[in-house]
């Protein structure tokens, strides 16, 4: 199936009569990428589902104001990332837990067998990811799982390429250390 170009989606969305059609194409094209990006951050499916819907509702609301100075998909990732960070901060405040405790809360969700279909090594990797600070985890996920370029990640997170490279390498070292020392 031929992928619809972003420019075509934006053109259709600009027209009132084809706005819904354009949005439908956009959702179909990006729903899985956005979902997995969010899911890797919040771990729980129901939380991810809520955040995906919130993300696309915001896309619908602000797409008319979208400027072509960035790629559409980095713009979508930016909205989704902000939704994740806001959600995780609210969850921390609600549960009155410190930043250090939060990863173990996610780690508990990982222990739920309905959430994961993975062997022990994959579960260990996900637990290792949970010990990373949220922004560092975002960087690692976008690089490791989505093969995103640092320049694109810079657009998503509003951080310099150099800082992102450093952040990714620190994340890799932490994960390697966790894998080595937790059997």
């Amino acid at each position, binding site marked *: 199936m031929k992928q619809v170009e972003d420019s075509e989606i934006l053109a259709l969305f600009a027209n009132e009569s084809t706005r819904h059609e354009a*949005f*439908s194409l956009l959702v*179909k094209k990006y729903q899985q990428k956005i979902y997995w990006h969010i899911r890797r951050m919040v771990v729980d499916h129901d939380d991810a589902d809520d955040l995906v819907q919130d993300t696309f509702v915001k896309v619908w609301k602000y797409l008319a104001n979208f400027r072509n100075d960035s790629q559409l998909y980095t713009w979508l990732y930016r909205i989704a990332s902000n939704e994740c960070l806001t959600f995780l901060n609210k969850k921390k405040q609600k549960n009155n837990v410190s930043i250090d405790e939060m990863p173990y809360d996610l780690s508990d969700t990982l222990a739920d067998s309905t959430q*994961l*279909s993975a062997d022990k090594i*994959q579960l260990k990797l996900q637990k290792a990811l949970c010990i990373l600070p949220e922004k560092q985890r975002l960087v690692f996920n976008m690089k490791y799982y989505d093969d995103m370029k640092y320049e694109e990640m810079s657009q998503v997170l509003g951080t310099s390429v150099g800082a992102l490279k450093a952040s990714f390498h620190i994340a890799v070292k932490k994960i*390697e250390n966790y*894998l080595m020392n937790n059997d």
Partner: protein
Amino acid sequence: MNEDWREEAPKLAAMEKINPFLVPEGYFEKMHEQLQAQISIHQFDNQQDFFQLPDQYFDTLEGQISSRVKLEQLVGNAAGEVFSVPENYFESLEDKINAKIGITGKKQSNIRKLTSSWITYAAAACITAVLTFGIYNYRTLKTANVESQIAQLPEEDIVNYLQLYSDAGDVQALASNMELVPEASELIPEISDSEIEKYLQSNL
């Protein structure tokens, strides 16, 4: 992708890059419908003309609120005291009135008693005496009245009454009274003991 990190993290590099998370069946197929529903709700919420407003409503709203606040303040004051009085007004009011009517200070007025105490005691004694005399006369008259009425009854009626209604207690009372009546004690010797015994056996 820059693969430098593989040398620094061989254990991570050796791992297969897979997605370990599960999603409910048909989730992505239904996602589009769910999003459309969310968008519809969002559009409904944002309909500017859904609620009709009078012209220039917000222009006059501030003035209306100010007027309402002033009115509430007035009503609030009315619930307490509308008028104020000088401090300690009521404490000095009595003195002012007394001064106007010619009474100075708070003199204890001397009111002459119309009756002396011995008259009170004498009156109480009279009332007690009258009441005592009245009660005594009432009881005496009542007793005499009953006795005189019984005296007028024929003896035969009294005997019949006693035969019908007397009990063992009445016998003792009758016997004691009979001792006091000399005529009755004189009659007894004329009746033999056996007759008396028969009488008592048949009647008691």
